[in-house]
Structure formats: structure tokens, C-alpha cells
């Protein structure tokens, strides 16, 4: 009876070996598929994170732009880097241009705030991979009302063991051309005022020229800006030997923006307003009043 078992046992052995082979192949095959699935899942998570960052960056740009333009305009384009009184700079002193580099100053403030936003965004549940945000440069298209940030390096999220996800690092948002162009309007008003006053022979002449210019500027910028010109009293030694300070405020009437008001320590909606002084006249022995101004700590 036992004689018949031999071939059967051999068959069982062969079957068992074949079954092991199939199982081993299946296990290794599954392991590779499972590993792939895990990597793919991780890649999807990382792409999700990249998409999240790309959707949040325009909002961060907008808030950074509103805050930077509000603060820099409020301080006349950068009070801490020039001659100023109570954080409002002089844009012209006896015909000498002392306009701060408002373009550079507002870009610098924008990038400071924008970098803070980028750092705070990177902490989300969407990926444990590391995100590297490049150093951005700002480009403002005043006429087109475009604000663009770009970098030579891409946005990159890397998981060192598996992969690196890269994407474009150029972002643009639409901004009001009037808001972005407020400094140019200020420069135009300052130039016209200094030119007009330089032709005046007396303090009273200068005052009436300033009043005339006010209405001409009101017409020119109607619907865009409110221009407020506040001439102060004569500090000179006579009517023909005069020197006086003029405060110019240019209010962008387009829209109110969500900003943080550092003087009131609260969030608010406010118009962007550019403030600066001019110090003009014929008595150059008089010096404008100047005091120091601390920079805003963002």
C-alpha cells in the first residue's frame, strides 16, 4: 500500500516548491507595488502642499503690498532714511530735491512682510517634506497695475529619500494703478509746487500761487487722489525774505485696504495716504525743523 505513496509525495514536494515560488514572487511583487503606492501617495501629498502654497501666495502678496504701501506712504516714502519731522520727510528744501528712494523702500518693506508670511505658511499638515522658498525680487508695473514677485530659483519641496517637486516661482497680482502710482503723483505735485514757489517774490505771492496750484492739481487728479496742501506761517525775516513749510497729503481715494495701524495697534480698513513736507522760500538762513524717526519693527 505504501508503494503507491512515493510518486504522490514527489508530486506534493514539486507542488509545494512551485507554490513557494509563486508565493515568493507574489510577496516581492506586492512589496514593490506597495512601496510604489506609498511613494505615489507621498508625492500626491507633496503636490497638494505645493498647490496650497501657490493658492496662499497671492493673498500673502496682497496683504504685504497693502501694509507696505500704507506704511511707506504714511512716512513719505521712507522717513527714517532722510531729513524728516515727526516721521514725515522733507521732499524739497529750498529747491534741493531730498525725496527718499520710495521705490526701494517700499520694495524692502514688502519683502520683509512677505517673507514673514512665507515662513508662517510652511507649517501645515499637508506634508512632512521640507519646502524651500527662494529669495524673491519685486517688480511693480505701475501703469498696468501689476505686482509681480519672481525668483531665479524654483519653488521646491523635497523629500530627500524619494523625490523633489518643483514649480514656477513667479506670481502676479492685480493692484490699483492709483495706489501703486501714489508716489509718482506726489513727485509731480512736489515738483509743481517748488517750481511755482521759486517764482514768487513774496510770501503772500507764494501763498496765492499755492492756492491756484491746489485747484489745478484737484482737477488733474480728480477721481484718483485727494490732494491736501497745508502751507504754514512765514519763518523768514520779512515778506520778501520768506521761508515756510508746506505739508502735502495725497490720499488714494480708490479703496480702503485691510492694514495694521501701528499708531493705534489694531487692524483696520484705511485709504493709502502719502504725506511729505516741502520747505521753500528765499531766506536760506532758516533751517527746517528736523527730528529722528525710528523704523517700524515688522
Amino acid at each position, binding site marked *: 500500500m505504501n*508503494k503507491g505513496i512515493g510518486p504522490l509525495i514527489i508530486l506534493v514536494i514539486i507542488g509545494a516548491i512551485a507554490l513557494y515560488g509563486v508565493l515568493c514572487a507574489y*510577496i516581492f511583487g506586492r512589496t514593490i507595488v506597495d512601496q510604489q503606492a*506609498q511613494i505615489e501617495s507621498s508625492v500626491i501629498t507633496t503636490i497638494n502642499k505645493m498647490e*496650497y502654497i501657490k493658492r*496662499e501666495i497671492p*493673498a500673502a502678496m496682497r496683504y504685504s503690498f497693502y501694509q507696505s504701501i500704507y506704511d511707506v506712504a504714511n512716512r513719505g516714502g521712507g522717513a527714517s532714511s532722510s531729513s524728516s519731522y515727526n516721521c514725515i520727510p522733507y521732499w524739497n528744501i529750498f529747491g534741493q530735491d531730498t525725496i527718499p528712494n520710495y521705490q526701494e523702500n517700499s520694495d524692502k518693506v514688502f519683502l520683509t512682510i512677505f517673507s514673514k508670511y512665507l515662513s508662517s*505658511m510652511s507649517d501645515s*499638515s499637508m506634508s512632512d517634506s521640507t519646502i524651500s522658498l527662494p529669495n524673491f525680487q519685486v517688480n511693480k508695473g505701475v501703469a498696468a497695475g501689476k505686482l509681480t514677485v519672481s525668483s531665479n530659483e524654483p519653488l521646491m519641496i523635497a523629500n530627500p529619500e524619494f523625490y523633489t517637486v518643483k514649480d514656477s516661482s513667479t506670481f502676479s497680482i492685480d493692484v490699483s494703478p492709483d495706489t501703486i502710482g501714489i508716489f509718482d503723483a506726489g513727485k509731480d505735485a512736489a515738483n509743481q509746487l517748488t517750481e511755482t514757489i521759486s517764482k514768487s517774490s513774496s510770501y503772500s505771492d507764494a501763498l496765492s500761487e499755492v492756492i491756484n496750484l491746489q485747484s489745478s492739481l484737484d482737477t488733474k487728479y480728480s477721481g484718483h487722489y485727494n490732494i491736501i496742501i497745508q502751507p504754514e506761517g512765514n519763518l523768514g525775516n520779512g515778506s520778501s525774505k520768506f521761508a515756510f513749510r508746506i505739508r502735502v497729503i495725497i490720499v488714494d481715494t480708490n479703496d480702503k485696504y*485691510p492694514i495694521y495701524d501701528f499708531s493705534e495697534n489694531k487692524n483696520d480698513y484705511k485709504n493709502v495716504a502719502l504725506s511729505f513736507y516741502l520747505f521753500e522760500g528765499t531766506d536760506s538762513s532758516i533751517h527746517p525743523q528736523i527730528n529722528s524717526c525710528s523704523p517700524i519693527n515688522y
Partner: protein
Amino acid sequence: MRFFKNKKGIFGLDDFLALTAISALLVLIPFFTLKYHVNNVLQFENKYNTADLAMLALISMKSDGSDMPTLLGGHFIYNSPSDLSFLKKYLDDFVPSKCYELQTPDASNTVTSTSETQTQISTAPYSLLIKSTVSDNSCTPDSTSTVNIVLPYNPQKLTQKLELRIS
């Protein structure tokens, strides 16, 4: 054939069958354990991705010309817009199970004073809580996606955590 006939031998038929069974178990037990573990991980990852995708779909939406991060940021700081209940409709579309909870997780900590002059804001003044209409026991949100929504500039707080929990 004597080898197999001798039941008292070192390697008899019973031994062979037992060895085969043990070997099969040794191979199969780790395999099924691994498969169970990997399945769990993949299910978790899949749900996680689903929550992330629903969150992404939500923050990609626009309403009245404003993008969602701007709307949410305005709500959290200025309560403008004050009513975000329209998000319920979007979430009903994005979450297949219709079981979700969208909320600001740290909303209970409102404002904490750290000194007389400095006020540290641990969360935005206005919070958000939107729950699905499904309220039976089958709806227990178990996968979560959290993002930081950018807020209008405030030196104390630039982002607000927003959490979407789905089933």
C-alpha cells in the same frame, strides 16, 4: 522509497507534511501581517489625501470675485464677510461621504495678554465652525487636513489654522 516508508526515520512523511505546513505558515503569516499593515497605511494615506484634496478644492474656490484665502482672512480678522455658510454647499460637493467638519481648531483661545503693553493674539478674533447636515452615528470625521490661512497683516499673527475633518 524506504526513506518515506520508515515512519520512525528522521524525515518521515508526517514530518515532511508538518514541515511543509510550518514553512507555509512562516511565509504566510508575515505576508498577511505586512499586507494588513500596508493596507492600513494606504487607507490612512488615501483618506488623508482625500481630506487634503477637499481642503484644496475649498481654498481654490472664488466667491464674488474674491479668492477663498482672502474671504477667510477677512472673516477671521474683520468678520467681513460675516456669513460663510455658503461654504456648506461647496463642502457637500467636495466631500463624497457628506460627513465633514470645517473649523478653526484653536478658536477657544481668543486673546491672551502677555504684558500690559503687548497683547499676544493666539487666534484671530472671529472663528468658524461648519458641520455637515449628516448627524447620525455613522458620521464620525476621522481624517484631517490642516492649513494656515493668511490673515491681513498683524505683527502678532499672520495665519490662522483651519482644519477640515472628514469621514
